[in-house]
């Protein structure tokens, strides 16, 4: 009998059973499948049982007593999906977010997500809203979406099962690719870019990898149901993934002071989230912030224009001058170049 069919038969049998079903009975019911040697049959059933548990089938083995015999039994109430009593608004939010993620082409756990949306919609009838919210991935070229999507799916499974992965990684900072073994701790989305955070065996520490820069990916297939590693209890994805360029952890934190004036002053909080702001003369705003990638901040300041000034430290001011001078050199008129 085909495995899918056998497992469904088991579901039907167990859902209908009023008494625990013993292993001997199961062997009787499925002689062609659980016949043969004791060992082989038991191993086959163990695999089927693991699959049932993975599907959320609440199967338990009960030890018999005076009133009940030994055997497998399923808690029916814990099996069937109950109504979640979601309000129209709650359902709309979950649906909007879920469909946006599915429409985005790449979201880890796409299969899981599609099933989840189906299930929460089960009791909703035909009235489900289909909002048009879409998320496009940055840094993913046409034709590459499928690859990124497939990698995210593999990584999601590896994160969930805590299995290590082997990756070939192309960092823009290095001319050649590197091979690494990584314990995947989790996946984070920032500005349309998916990042894998995990323990890198090559570097012996926590590292982040942009999923679109992973050229090859293999998940450890040995002992699929036994985790390869533990995620440290105090691990948090958010503290390892940068929202803004100056948050990349390239050097020790430095406090930088900026002064925003004109139209930028009122936008200070949204431009520099997390900075400590204080009003200064002429309607300006002074912002203090911790920076772990100074060049990232300096480039952002140059982009903002003359209404954003770096007040300190001197090293940051010097960097602004260096970059601006370099830009000027590259854009000076021919006669200016001569005089310079």
């Amino acid at each position, binding site marked *: 009998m085909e495995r899918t069919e056998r497992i469904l038969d088991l*579901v039907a049998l167990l859902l209908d059973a009023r008494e625990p079903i013993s292993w001997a009975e199961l062997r009787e019911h499925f002689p062609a499948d659980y016949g043969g040697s004791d060992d082989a049959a038991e191993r086959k059933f163990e695999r089927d049982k693991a699959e049932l548990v993975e599907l959320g089938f609440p199967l338990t083995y009960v030890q018999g007593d005076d009133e009940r015999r030994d055997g497998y039994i399923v808690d029916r109430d814990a099996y069937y999906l109950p109504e979640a009593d979601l309000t129209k608004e709650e359902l709309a939010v979950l649906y909007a977010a879920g469909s946006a993620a599915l429409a985005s082409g790449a979201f880890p756990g796409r299969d899981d997500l599609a099933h989840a949306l189906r299930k929460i919609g089960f009791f909703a009838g035909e009235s489900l809203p289909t909002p048009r919210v879409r998320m496009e991935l940055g840094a993913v070229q046409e034709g590459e979406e499928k690859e990124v999507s497939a990698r995210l799916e593999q990584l999601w499974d590896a994160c969930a099962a805590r299995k290590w992965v082997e990756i070939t990684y192309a960092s823009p900072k290095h001319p050649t690719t590197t091979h690494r073994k990584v314990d995947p701790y989790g996946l984070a989305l920032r500005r349309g870019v998916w990042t894998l955070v995990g323990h890198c065996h090559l570097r012996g520490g926590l590292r982040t990898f942009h999923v679109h820069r992973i050229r090859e990916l293999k998940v450890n297939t040995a002992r699929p149901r036994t985790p390869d590693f533990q995620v440290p209890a105090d691990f948090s994805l958010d503290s390892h993934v940068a929202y803004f360029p100056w948050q990349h952890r390239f050097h020790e934190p430095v406090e930088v002071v900026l002064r925003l004036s004109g139209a930028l002053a009122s936008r200070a909080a949204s431009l520099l989230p997390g900075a400590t702001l204080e009003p200064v003369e002429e309607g300006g705003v002074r912002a203090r912030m911790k920076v772990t990638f100074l060049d990232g901040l300096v480039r952002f300041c140059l982009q903002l224009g003359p209404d954003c000034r770096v007040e300190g430290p001197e090293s940051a001011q010097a960097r602004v001058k260096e970059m601006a001078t370099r830009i000027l050199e590259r854009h000076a008129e021919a006669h200016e170049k001569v005089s310079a």
Partner: protein
Amino acid sequence: MSNVHERLRRLLFLVPYVSKHPGVTVEALAKALNMSREDLLEELDLLTCVGRPPFNPDDYIDIYVDNDRVYVDLDQRLFAPPRLTAGEAAALAASAELLRPAAGDALQSALQKLERILPPSTRERYREMYRKIDASTEAPQALAPLTRAIIERLEVTFAYARPGGPPEPRRVRPYELLSHRGQWYLQGFDHMRQDARLFRLDRMEDITVTDTPFLPPPDARADVPNPARSRTEVSVRVRFTPVAAPYVKERFGRDARPLADGGVEVLVAGDSERWLTQWVLSFGGEAQVVEPESARAAVARAARASVGL
């Protein structure tokens, strides 16, 4: 995940779904399960062989197609789908993060209710897996009224900030919300311009959902903003050093032409001097405008201004 797992998940949903929607068309059922008609018919064949021992005629699932509609007479107790697995709930909760700030209380309460219907044995695993995806994309508050306006097909009004001028009042039929490179956009029909336009959410103020209804066109899909693909009268040639080249290639793909020195060159739209100078400056000296001369001069002016010259 294995094929068997995926199939089982589908089939354990399929039977209850037909039980709840007797006479659902093959087409609609295939769509609900996101599978082809042929695959669905094969799965229905398999289901007719499923039953419980001792496999008497009444012990089988009785599911059949009649006149292109699907019915189930004996569901063998598969009248409701299984509860959400930890993975399913975690993926759903993580996707909900996309809209977190905008969705407010509804999201919070939805997630609480979701957790309540998980089997108790699954809850801890769900929480653990939920922590493994972080998709918070700083969703702006404006998503909430705009999502509502799109669903309810109502026009919106807002003040739209323009560089170097006062905000302009706009009246728009909202079609679609789009997030690209961390920036959220609204695509819609702009009454002032009498055309479809893309608006940045961070430039909108005083958003009001009106009670004027509209019918959205069926094909209102916005293009992702791409300065290398928009057609303008003037194009600007920008060259990047080998240091910046890998990043530029990631963004522009084939539109980034490789140069002999390991750098790349991109031709971008020249209709906004402000955008162009900001963009070139953001590379901190690793980008150079080659032509036209007016664009080179604009970048030089901006660089001088930034150091107070």
